[in-house]
């Protein structure tokens, strides 16, 4: 549900319009639902609209949480 993809803002075309890039795929998106978007921000794109920025710090922390598990767990235990 609600297919939405994080993509990097590459160019701000106008107040309500930006070009985002996802691994080389470039698309126009509307910024009408966003505030204070800057080039380099990652935004979640849904039906051509940016919905929310990705917080890079939080993302990093989540990934760190996943990584932490590696330590808690015996890598050979589940095989």
């Amino acid at each position: 549900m609600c297919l939405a993809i994080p993509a990097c803002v590459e160019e701000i075309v106008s107040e309500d319009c930006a070009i985002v890039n996802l691994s080389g795929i470039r698309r126009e998106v509307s910024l009408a639902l966003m505030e204070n978007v800057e080039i380099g921000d990652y935004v979640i794109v849904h039906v051509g609209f940016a919905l929310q920025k990705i917080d890079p710090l939080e993302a990093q922390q989540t990934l760190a949480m996943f990584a932490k598990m590696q330590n808690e767990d015996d890598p050979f235990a589940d095989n």
Partner: protein
Amino acid sequence: MKYIDEFRDGTLAKKIASAIKNEVNPNRRYQLMEFCGGHTHAISRYGIPDLLPGNVRMIHGPGCPVCVLPVGRIENAIRLAQQPGVILCSYGDMLRVPTDHGMSLLKIKAQGADVRMVYSSTDAVRIAQENPQHQVVFFAIGFETTTPPTAIAIKQAQAMGLNNFTVFCNHVLTPPAISHILQSPEVRQLGWVPLDGFIGPAHVSTIIGSHPYDYFAEEFQKPVVIAGFEPLDVMQAILMLIQQINQGRADVENEFTRAVTREGNLKAQYLVAEVFELRRVFEWRGLGWVPYSALRIKAAFADFDAEKRFQIPALSIADHKACECGAILRGIKQPQDCKIFGTVCTPDNPVGSCMVSSEGACAAHYSYGRFRQTA
């Protein structure tokens, strides 16, 4: 793909799987509902059930806006599209959904109706601009995620003074549907709620924030973990839910902190509040009538309301007798318990709501998991 590939790492998945295995109490069952089709998709697509202990079972919720749209509303859209001079625009997902007599927007398009697939609500506005001699109706569907773009489209049309653009609004709300499942007579009849915890929506929550879920955690004493749609997010949410359950907690936790805040997207919320208001009740395919679970266009924007302009009648079309969707959506039954699963009801010819899109419980099982049943 940054913020995507990291969250699909197979090696990390095995680590989380180990952690889950370590965490589960082998003497009990964990029945966890993912409300959203996005989670269902990730679970099926990546084969997550194969990584979970046998006593952890995922219940696929009603979180696909295409699946839950009642047949009467699709029938309405079909009749609209068949009116001469009408161009009906909708998202690709809607085109194939059949009514009870096997019609669909795709089929009437084949018969000559002007049905256009759009990728964004604003495409429909552009089509209205380009076709001043036609009435362009945007058949709007979706949860809280998809509603703000519809609000924008209506405001654009208003700003442009378009008199040939209307929206047939079918936007629905997540929290009332979850409440409804937990409060349903079937569940009450059993005497117990067969759901031990919820994975909360990802993208819906980017808009509405995490706070609307506090109610469930408190009222029903069920833990909720808001999670992203990538498979590692789902795995992690499962782990977090099992931890809460084991610890006897019922909190709202947020795994998707990189995009979901407590408040959500306030700009989007204000826009939605400006254009839409609650319906007293709305029918959900598979769930029946759910109070305060959908939006309609406010009187101030009545000029853009297709229900007003075209006097769309209320059509209530009963689900197929054999269909077990209601029980499946509440975690009481499984797709293969339905007598017509995979025979009369298939993804090519869906009968019930859970077969409509690949995110429905039955379709996901048919398309991704069926081999487990036959093996």
